[in-house]
């Protein structure tokens, strides 16, 4: 069968989600952000909640996320996304509110806001994109940087005696009674992407059922920050990140 006979509108099985805008993403080639944006857009489209969703973008590469997903956005000061989401959700309780944050944003300067929003059990969804460094500013060490990991501020590797231990913020969040669903996922292959999409869908449904805060950590790669090719970065993530940041549900109630 000729390719021309296959490429017809009636045979289309997968394409760009209409909730995504036409803009070209500013992220580096192979960046996990694009994949996670796409999953959020697909879940929003499938649930039919495009006009009922408010998202809070962080400080970090995803600060421009409002250019790419065609929903309502607010942009929070560094780390304060969970506080803004609290306000948005309390003023508009019938809307779906989620935050989209990196590890430098959520787990360093935003620790207080995040932990207290989760502890209060705000009916919001928090997406943590964990690439173990500050990607936007040049690959500095973040609290979630692995032991021994080389970054621009730890050129000889993260030294526990000097820099402390990597923070498993998701495990901390899972201890809090306000959270209903805490999970750690990834997007490096098709199976992982589909699992992450299911997790996002579940989190949005929890939010509608007022079950409490849903928290999704997506273990991600930052190939330019890690100084690797996109494919090698995904491999490095599987070999080094997954043994420490174990994938799976930490809490589901």
């Amino acid at each position, binding site marked *: *069968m000729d390719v021309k006979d*296959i490429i*017809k509108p009636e*045979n289309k099985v*997968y394409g*760009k989600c209409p909730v995504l805008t036409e803009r070209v993403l500013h992220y580096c*080639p*192979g960046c996990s952000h694009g994949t996670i944006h796409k999953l959020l857009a697909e879940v929003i489209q499938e649930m039919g909640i495009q006009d009922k969703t408010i998202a809070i973008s962080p400080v970090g590469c995803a600060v421009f996320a409002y250019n790419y997903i065609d929903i309502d956005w607010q942009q929070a000061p560094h780390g304060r996304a969970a506080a803004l989401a609290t306000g948005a959700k309390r003023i508009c309780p019938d809307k779906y509110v989620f935050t989209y944050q990196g590890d430098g944003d959520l787990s360093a300067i935003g620790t207080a806001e995040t932990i207290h929003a989760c502890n209060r059990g705000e009916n919001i969804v928090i997406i943590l994109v964990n690439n173990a460094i500050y990607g936007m500013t040049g690959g500095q060490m973040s609290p979630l940087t692995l032991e021994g990991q080389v970054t621009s501020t730890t050129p000889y590797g993260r030294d526990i005696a000097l820099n402390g231990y990597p923070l498993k913020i998701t495990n901390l969040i899972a201890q809090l009674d306000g959270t209903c669903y805490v999970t750690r996922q990834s997007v490096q*292959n*098709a199976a992982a992407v589909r699992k992450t999409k299911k997790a996002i869908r579940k989190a949005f449904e929890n939010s509608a059922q007022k079950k409490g805060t849903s928290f999704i950590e997506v273990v991600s790669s930052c190939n330019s920050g890690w100084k690797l090719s996109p494919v090698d970065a995904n491999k490095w993530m599987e070999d080094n990140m997954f043994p420490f940041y174990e994938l799976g549900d930490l809490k589901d109630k």
Partner: protein
Amino acid sequence: MAMKGAIVVDRERCKGCGVCIVNCPAKVIGLTKEVNSKGYPMSYMANPEECTGCTNCATVCPDSVITVYRVKV
């Protein structure tokens, strides 16, 4: 029943990251030698006869540049 598939790549938006290539179970996709206006090589069907339209490539594509078509044969 066998499936036959094909992909269409938005050449101007593709950044040539190669994530689709390693995720294709049928080894259909390759990178072009020429580059687009941004200077990136682009994904294309190097072995079109092997494509089953499984959608793995489009699922992992960070830039949503791949459209997948599939027919039963």
